[in-house]
């Protein structure tokens, strides 16, 4: 367990990076430090392994003050992963993973065994990767090695500073999943820095939200989502801010649209239509002309029905639009329409026939989940005033 007691940090240039931090990182938990850039996340983390020294206050690991321990020894007992990976380019993957066991003077057989074990743990075949150099691996694979390396000497505490933020979204998701799996198996005390709220929600046991060198709120992801402490937290977790007056207003359809409805010109062929559906993961397309006037809709079934006829275009197989709404229609009316006629989506078309937006079941649910907590708050306030 790691404890911060009244920790302050003033840099040499007089900048106060941490105002006064009191924190507890629980044993066996993954705690995420999150907040805007420059709020002091890295500073906080680096004081745990003494890469930085607090200006005042104490940091205890299992009750022992870190400032009383030899920094080099201390660091060998704490795993460390950083954003730009920091693999040593002149050492093979095997040697990179073996760094800390080697520094701790394990014997060679034990190191070799451990290296293979760790590579398997992060889903890389030791036979293939052990003797390669970091430059011969993809970014995602390199960061896997970074993670494996932090676990190498089986430390109780692991620090990770934005370890996945330089990766593409797919590798990032994969590594997050792997970290969750590793953590379920190994139960380390992990401190993880990120500024991606989705990442925090996905992996954290506890989230510590920071701003300008202060801790704003601490709690489980569930708790922070349900009870954001203030507007800053609300904005940060991506809920639409609404003051109590407007929150009682009924939303209109324009606020609930999907960002980029998939449209196609009438003259396009059927194979093109299928490709587009596949790429955008939708089952129907809206057909609009050059003036963006809505012509009709075509579903995957309409297309497949006539797919054999190579000369047909989407214009030939499209269906007319059965139901549509005007901009400014109250959301409840639209939702009623959708449920009555079992519609999965509903086009918004203006007076001139232009296609201006689309609402779907998904976009409605998303909107409700975003505003829901603040509606609850404002209702609570209203009742509170009456009582």
């Amino acid at each position, binding site marked *: 367990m790691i404890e911060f007691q009244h920790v302050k940090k003033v840099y040499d240039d007089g900048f106060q990076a941490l105002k006064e931090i009191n924190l507890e990182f629980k044993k066996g938990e993954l705690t995420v430090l999150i907040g805007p850039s420059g709020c002091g996340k890295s500073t906080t983390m680096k004081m745990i*392994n003494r*890469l930085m020294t607090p200006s005042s206050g104490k940091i205890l690991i299992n009750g022992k003050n870190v400032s009383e321990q030899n920094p*080099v*020894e*201390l*660091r*060998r*007992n704490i795993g*460390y*992963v*950083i*954003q*730009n*990976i*920091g*693999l*040593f*380019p*002149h*050492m*093979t993957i095997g*040697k*990179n993973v*073996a*760094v*800390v066991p*080697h*520094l701790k003077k394990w014997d*060679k057989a034990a190191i070799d065994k451990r290296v293979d074990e760790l590579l398997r743990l992060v889903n890389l075949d030791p036979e293939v990767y052990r003797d390669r*150099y970091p430059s011969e691996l993809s970014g995602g694979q390199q960061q896997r090695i*970074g993670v494996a*390396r932090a676990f190498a000497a089986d430390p109780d505490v692991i*620090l990770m500073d934005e370890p996945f933020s330089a990766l593409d979204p797919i590798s990032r998701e994969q590594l997050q999943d792997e970290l969750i799996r590793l953590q379920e198996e190994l139960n380390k005390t992990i401190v993880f820095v990120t500024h991606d709220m989705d990442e925090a929600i996905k992996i954290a046991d506890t989230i510590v939200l920071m701003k300008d060198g202060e801790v704003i709120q601490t709690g489980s992801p569930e708790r922070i989502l349900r009870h954001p402490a203030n507007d800053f937290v609300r904005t940060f977790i991506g809920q639409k801010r609404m003051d109590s007056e407007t929150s009682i207003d009924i939303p209109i359809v324009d606020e609930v649209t999907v960002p980029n409805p998939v449209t196609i010109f009438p003259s396009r062929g059927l194979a093109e239509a299928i490709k587009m559906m596949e790429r955008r993961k939708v089952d129907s397309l809206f057909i609009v002309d050059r003036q963006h006037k809505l012509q009709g809709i075509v579903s995957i079934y309409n297309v497949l029905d006539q797919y054999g006829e190579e000369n047909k275009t989407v214009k030939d197989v499209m269906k007319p639009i059965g139901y549509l709404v005007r901009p400014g229609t109250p959301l409840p009316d639209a939702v009623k329409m959708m449920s009555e006629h079992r519609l999965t989506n509903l086009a918004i078309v203006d007076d001139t026939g232009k296609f201006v937006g689309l609402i779907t079941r998904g976009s409605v649910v998303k909107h409700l989940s975003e505003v829901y907590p603040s509606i609850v708050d404002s209702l609570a306030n209203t009742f509170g005033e009456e009582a």
Partner: protein
Amino acid sequence: MNAFLSFVQERGADIAVALRDHLTISAAAVLLGCLVAIPLGIALVYNRFNWLNSIVFFLANLLQTVPSLALLAILIPLMGIGMKPAIIALFLYSIMPILRNTYDGFDSVDRGVLESARGMGYGTLQRIIRIQLPLALPYIMSGIRVTSVYIISWATLAALIGAGGLGQLIVSGLGVNKPELIITGALGAIVLAFLIDGLLGWLERVLTRRFGRTSSITA
């Protein structure tokens, strides 16, 4: 051509001595240069006072600009004549490029690499030897190669203060008006420079492979 070859054969012993002296002077100068400039370069990277770095680089640059003949002449009253002052003079010239390259090499090591080395528990000395030195090695070696090549060429001047070497052949050639001697001296210096450059290139590759890429286990 034949005449030239038979001349070389005839004076073979003298040429061999000249070559040996030339090599001794150059090698000693570059070696001393390495011994001084590499640690100094590392110290400058770790030094936090920028003004000190500026002063050291200024002095090293200044040395570089003193005409070699003048430097040799200055050293005569201090050290007399012979090999010793020649080696010292050439050593002074070798400092700057090796220093510069060592500094740049150490400075070029990725911040992330250094931070993770520190964060994982490398001590300062371990970090220098196992991480920074291997990664800076290509820079340092190229500094040494460049230096060696021009030190070998400048070492011909050492004959002027009685240090011997291939320059001796040139000086005698001028004295007795024997072009073969001049050509032999010049050609010898060129060939020597080429050979040493090749040798150091080979050494660089070997070192990179051994010291660099396997340092974690062997170091």
